[in-house]
């Protein structure tokens, strides 16, 4: 079975198939599904960070015309008792947050009431009139001043590797010719997807719920709702056909889906809850991170010791953990390394995964220390990386399924013009501005997860491929269509991709950069299997041209099955369906590591790599930093669609620029109150901040990492980007800033 290349084949820059829906406004996001008699929910958030609700005065709010009900911990309907009912696929150890459960307040902006009204305006007005009396306690939200209270999490979060040490790092450090020690910190970040978290629950006439939620995993949310509200499995469907960005904020079910579902069940009518932008600080963030590093090296710059310790923030009720420290100890060849990782519990919501969780901070901060080492040794930063290049995974000692990082360094450096870089800081000036060039390495896991997909062809030749995957802007719709198109030789116009629905065949949540590898494998398998069935049906037909040939000897092209060695022998798919009297033909297949016919789980390391080069211009007097050029060379296996792939990387790079220069969720630690919970004060890069971003995909053939050789791209763009920028800022100014973001006050 084979096909010829068309515009929609794998590897072609096909424009997004969901593009027209998105540019015309037809694409409906979570808060945009209409329902008769919809109750609008407005969340009332806690004004204090710790304490108890003493009293809630509802009279004025209830008097607002149009108010239907006000739900609080006092009158909420029954919800599950045990913590395990609230635990979702990605929950860290601890007690998941329950909104409106009791009078206890654990963080600022905790939801304390849900006002439900016939109009949005009435709900908002009533919410403003709700008065809450509090019993206040002193909160602790001061990460920096709590580091001495850090603890090793007693229970590990599943999927997060333990800190990996080897040899005797302290001894090796003591004996090293050169030492660099550096303490780095990164601020908390809020995901701030453009779409606020929202849920519309449509209450069916039979009491069944259709839940449109902003989530990265419809099936994760569904099982959560089933657990929390004791719903029958067939009485709730969760959908997320369009998701207005998420970056990890939609991995866990958040309180808006809990509240909207509670309201719908309680009122027996459809309900919607949309958070305000301000309330977007009340569920999840990338934790504050502190990382302390010690590097020992030989005179020539060979790494002899790495000591990498990190502390991240969590909440008082869950131990959120991420892999922060193993990037540093796993990136370079070095015999002795030590890593450790601790948490500090704060009176805040539980942090969570945000784009490249752990690596965006851990690898980035580690790369900053490498930059410092390059100056200490007196070698070029790129040269230092090459000197310590890891041919095998330093942690496991296993070879990589593929690692074209060396090529990425070469191609990136060449494109950037790195060879012309003066080694001294402050050596390039452009009027008032100092120019600096910096670089860093990026790394992320390449994983592939068990996924099922259904392929169904109907008599008219229309193909439907379905899996409960999500497209959060990643291009999932499009790559699925391409894989199906190539496998069955059908134009994408004939292919209907169905995703974003918990009723569809099982898919993992969209996260960790595994979606492309996983969904493409499942869809390819389902389409291959459907192809076999079609071929068998064709063989059974009277006078079939394929009687004497095997499946391997035909190709699928142009909606036909064609004998490879005799193109005059063919049958169109519609013909086969008609003559075999088949109204439709359907298969469901599951792909996953270790399943038969899939890539074996050979003992190898699987990772995506990148080399990032940055140019900055820094105003010598004002300290204003502009990133004028980024070149990023990415080794990520096979690229399914270079157009959407490039966008993924650019998006990661832009977010990395935000991390480097702007993004910082600030807390007024006196009150435990977020201070910059809006777009005017939490700065993300805007159009004028972004200049040239040159994305290069390095060729990397990999038959072992996943069935299609795909490694995934969602995270890698952000990893290391801030380090390359910090390296460039140092090169421009000679000032080392060890606390992200690098705002101008730190440079003047």
């Amino acid at each position, binding site marked *: 079975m084979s096909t010829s290349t068309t515009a929609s084949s794998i590897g072609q820059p096909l424009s997004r198939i969901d593009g*027209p829906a998105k540019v*015309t406004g037809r694409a409906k996001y979570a808060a945009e599904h209409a329902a008769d008699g919809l109750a609008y929910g407005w969340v009332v958030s806690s004004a204090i960070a710790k304490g108890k609700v003493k009293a809630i005065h509802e009279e004025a709010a209830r008097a607002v015309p149009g108010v239907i009900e006000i739900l609080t911990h006092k009158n909420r309907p029954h919800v599950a008792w045990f913590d395990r009912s609230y635990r979702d696929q990605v929950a860290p150890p601890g007690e998941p947050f329950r909104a409106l459960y009791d009078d206890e307040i654990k963080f600022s902006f905790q939801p304390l009431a849900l006002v439900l009204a016939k109009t949005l*305006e009435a709900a908002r007005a009533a919410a403003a009139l709700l008065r809450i009396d509090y019993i206040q306690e002193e909160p602790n939200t001061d990460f920096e001043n709590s580091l001495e209270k850090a603890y090793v999490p007693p229970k590990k979060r599943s999927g997060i590797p333990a800190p990996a040490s080897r040899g005797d790092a302290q001894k090796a450090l003591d004996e090293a010719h050169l030492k660099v020690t550096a303490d780095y910190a990164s601020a908390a970040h809020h995901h701030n997807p*453009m779409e606020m978290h929202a849920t519309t629950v449509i209450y069916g006439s039979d009491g069944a719920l259709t839940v449109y939620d902003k989530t990265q995993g419809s099936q994760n949310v569904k099982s959560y709702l089933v657990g929390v509200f004791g719903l029958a499995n067939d009485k709730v469907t969760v959908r997320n056909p369009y998701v*207005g960005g998420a970056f990890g904020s939609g991995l866990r079910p958040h309180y808006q889906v809990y509240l909207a579902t509670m309201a719908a069940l309680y009122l027996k009518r459809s309900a919607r809850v949309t958070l305000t*932008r301000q309330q977007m600080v009340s569920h999840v963030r990338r934790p504050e991170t502190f990382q302390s590093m010690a590097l020992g090296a030989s005179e020539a710059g060979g790494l002899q010791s790495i000591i990498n310790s990190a502390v991240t923030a969590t909440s008082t009720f869950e131990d959120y953990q991420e892999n922060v420290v193993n990037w540093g100890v796993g990136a370079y060849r070095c015999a002795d390394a030590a890593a450790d990782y601790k948490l500090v519990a704060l009176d805040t919501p539980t942090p969570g995964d945000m784009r490249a969780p752990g690596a965006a901070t851990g690898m980035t901060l580690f790369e900053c220390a490498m930059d410092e080492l390059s100056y200490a040794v007196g070698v070029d930063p790129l040269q230092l990386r090459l000197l310590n290049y890891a041919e095998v995974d330093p942690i496991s000692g296993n070879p990589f399924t593929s690692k074209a990082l060396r090529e990425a360094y070469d191609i990136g450096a060449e494109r950037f013009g790195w060879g012309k870089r003066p080694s001294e800081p402050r050596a390039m000036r452009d009027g008032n501005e100092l120019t600096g060039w910096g670089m860093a390495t990026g790394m992320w896991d390449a994983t592939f997860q068990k996924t099922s997909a259904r392929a169904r062809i109907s008599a008219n030749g229309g193909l439907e491929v379905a899996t409960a995957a999500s497209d959060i802007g990643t291009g999932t719709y499009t790559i699925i269509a391409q894989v199906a198109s190539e496998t069955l030789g059908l134009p994408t116009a004939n292919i209907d991709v169905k995703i974003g629905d918990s009723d569809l065949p099982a898919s993992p949540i969209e996260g960790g950069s595994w979606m492309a590898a996983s969904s493409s494998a499942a869809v390819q398998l389902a389409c291959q299997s459907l192809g076999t069935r079609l071929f068998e049906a064709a063989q059974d037909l009277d006078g079939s041209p394929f009687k004497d040939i095997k499946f391997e000897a035909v190709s699928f092209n142009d909606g036909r099955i064609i004998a490879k060695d005799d193109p005059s022998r063919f049958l169109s798919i519609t013909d086969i369906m008609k003559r075999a009297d088949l109204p439709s033909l359907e298969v469901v297949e599951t792909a996953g590591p270790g399943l038969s016919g899939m890539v074996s789980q050979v003992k190898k390391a699987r990772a995506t790599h990148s080399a990032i080069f940055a140019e900055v211009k820094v105003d010598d007097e004002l300290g204003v930093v502009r990133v004028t050029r980024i070149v990023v060379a990415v080794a990520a296996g096979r690229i399914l669609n270079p157009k959407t792939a490039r966008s993924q990387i*650019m998006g990661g790079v*832009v977010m990395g620029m935000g991390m480097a220069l702007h993004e910082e969720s600030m807390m007024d630690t006196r009150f435990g109150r977020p201070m910059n919970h809006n777009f005017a004060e939490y700065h993300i890069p805007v159009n004028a901040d972004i200049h040239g971003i040159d994305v290069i995909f390095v060729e990397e053939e990999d038959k072992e990492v996943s069935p299609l050789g795909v490694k995934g791209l969602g995270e890698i763009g952000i990893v290391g980007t801030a380090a390359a920028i910090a390296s460039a800022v140092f090169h421009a100014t000679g000032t080392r800033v060890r606390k992200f973001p690098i705002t101008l006050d730190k440079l003047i």
Partner: protein
Amino acid sequence: MPPQATLQPAAPAFDVKVDFSLTINGRKHSFSVEPWVTLLDLLRERLDLTGSKKGCDHGQCGACTVLVDGKRINSCLKLAVTLDGSEITTIEGLADGDRLHPLQQAFVEHDAFQCGYCTPGQICSAQGLINEGRARTAAEIRELMSGNLCRCGAYTNIVDAVEEVVRQGALHKEAAE
């Protein structure tokens, strides 16, 4: 001594409705709604025109950008009643039937979005910018499109898409002159 006036805020009046009309995407609509309803909420919640997005409700993100008499505005900041008699164009009103507007087409071709949530605002803003006649270079487009945030980071593609349409427009104009 005169009795002391008690300083009580007036009880809020919730039963106020105002009549007005708007032409939205070429169709005239008459309304009788509360004066505190924003144009954005009117479009999204009362007309099911959900193409205009809410990203902040505070005039900070541009997701809600629509054209009022050809000018781009943040519809979350505008009370609908104040626009009586205006012509509103939203993202739903740009395409010509099944034929995409040149900006819509260019956005698709240049992959000028990922999640698509900021996209209607970007496109309406770009049309407003073109109407202003101010976007001549990529640098100007970058600057003048900076009121429209894109968390997916599609900025360089947005600039490419807008620049292409601006350039085409310039060509058309030249051809017409």
